[in-house]
């Protein structure tokens, strides 16, 4: 069963077409990686799917609700971890988690319980009373993802979740994301191809607002006649090297 069904989805800003007639199906529980060079349309696609911006054409159905006709219902089912570490800096880890739980309608008791459970899962349990601005970059990213998960989303958008993290912090975060596989449908954007190979079930490569190819790592390498994902990605993105 599809979690996300995208049909002819487009976004134009005046003369500029950021996303051009996108058609894509993502299955429930799948971890789908969206790849592309800067300006390929990945973030615009995620913003349309998470109802942050309205499409100028086409539609996307997320678990039976349309981003065009029922964005409020879509918002209850999805959550986003933005590119930057989007945390409230002067709030503690616990307060950040409780805030997001409350905004998605959880009562105080349930919010607290969910916050404790997620803090254990993401290794934040020892620093619940620490202000978010005092955390390391890696810990802030973990908190940011935990804040996205506290609403129990059925679909999670991770926009470059490991950007700027050191190798250890990145690997720790991968482990946390792996735990979610099968349980939550995840759409991930990243520039790290190693991350895609470790985490994703399928990959979509976007170029100039269009979906150039979709498939598993093996399918994409086969399709392009290349030996590895990086070469396949370069070929699909229009690179000559």
């Amino acid at each position, binding site marked *: 069963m599809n979690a996300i069904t995208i049909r002819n989805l487009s976004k134009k*800003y*005046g003369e*500029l077409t*950021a996303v051009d007639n996108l058609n894509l199906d993502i299955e429930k529980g799948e971890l789908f990686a969206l790849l592309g060079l800067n300006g390929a349309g990945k973030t615009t696609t995620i*913003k349309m799917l*998470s*109802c*942050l*911006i*309205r499409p100028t054409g086409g539609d996307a159905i997320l678990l039976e609700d349309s981003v065009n006709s029922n964005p*409020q219902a879509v*918002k*209850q089912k*999805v*959550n*986003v*971890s*933005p*590119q*930057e*570490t*989007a*945390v*409230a*800096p*002067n*709030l503690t880890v616990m*307060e950040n988690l409780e*805030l*997001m739980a*409350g*905004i*998605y*309608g959880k009562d105080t008791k349930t919010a607290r319980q969910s916050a404790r459970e997620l803090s254990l899962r993401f290794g934040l349990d020892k620093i619940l009373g620490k*202000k978010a601005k005092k955390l390391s970059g890696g810990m802030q990213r973990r908190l940011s993802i935990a*804040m*996205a998960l506290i*609403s129990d989303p059925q679909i999670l958008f991770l926009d470059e979740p490991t950007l700027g993290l050191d190798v250890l912090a990145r690997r720790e975060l991968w482990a946390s994301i792996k735990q979610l596989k099968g349980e939550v449908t995840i759409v991930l954007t990243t520039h790290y191809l190693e991350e895609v190979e470790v985490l994703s079930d399928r990959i979509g490569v976007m170029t100039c607002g269009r979906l150039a190819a979709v498939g598993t790592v093996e399918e994409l390498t086969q399709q392009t006649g290349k030996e590895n994902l990086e070469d396949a990605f370069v070929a699909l993105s229009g690179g000559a090297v």
Partner: protein
Amino acid sequence: MKTMLFAGRNTKEILRDPINLLFGLGFPLILLLLLDVISGAIPEGANNTMFNIENTAPGIATFGTAFFALFAGMLLAKDRTTSFLMRLFASPMTAIDFIMGYTLPLLVMAVVQIIITFAVAGLLGLPLSFDTLLAAVVILPIAILFVGVGLLCGSLLSDKAVGGICGALLTNIAGWFSGVWIPLDLIGGVFKKTAEALPFYHSVEAAKAAGSGNYGLIMPHLTVVLAYAVVFYVLAVLAFRHKMRGDKA
């Protein structure tokens, strides 16, 4: 519920920053004490009542609310630039939740600041009465105006630009053209006309009128402040809703 949760978060963000407390509460009190010292140093024979506590207290209580433009603008601009706002835009929160969530805590803080300023003025000799309470209420429209200016700037500008405009520029304009430090009648000319065209002087005069029991003088001055407050607050709401739609390349 969502409004109150967000308002609670904003309250914590502001109050946990010691610089905010210093400027929001400390600076008006320092000014009050300083002007009281100046007033005490003026010989009685000089017949200069400008720095009497009856004149300075409403002026400083009014001027103190100018810092709420800075608080509102900085908080919103930082939320925008760190993508915290993007996370919230993806949630089921509505535009009303956001606007009220940013506004309510600042207005409550403004009320507390005004009350503390008048209470300290009371210790320095200001007779406290029902009229003092009325003066505090009369100051609220300018506080709403400042919050509106802050939200407008925070919706459109970076936090650095907000610091310059709402911090340095606005507080100076509000201070100089309020008539609290400078006697406008003595300077006259373009300076006085500019002050009369802006809301700051009118807010101080309305508060002075309320504090001294001259009720008939309140509304002519307060009408100007209310007009500015409505215009800037509506502009702030429109700018915020525009950002919320996010329709830019």
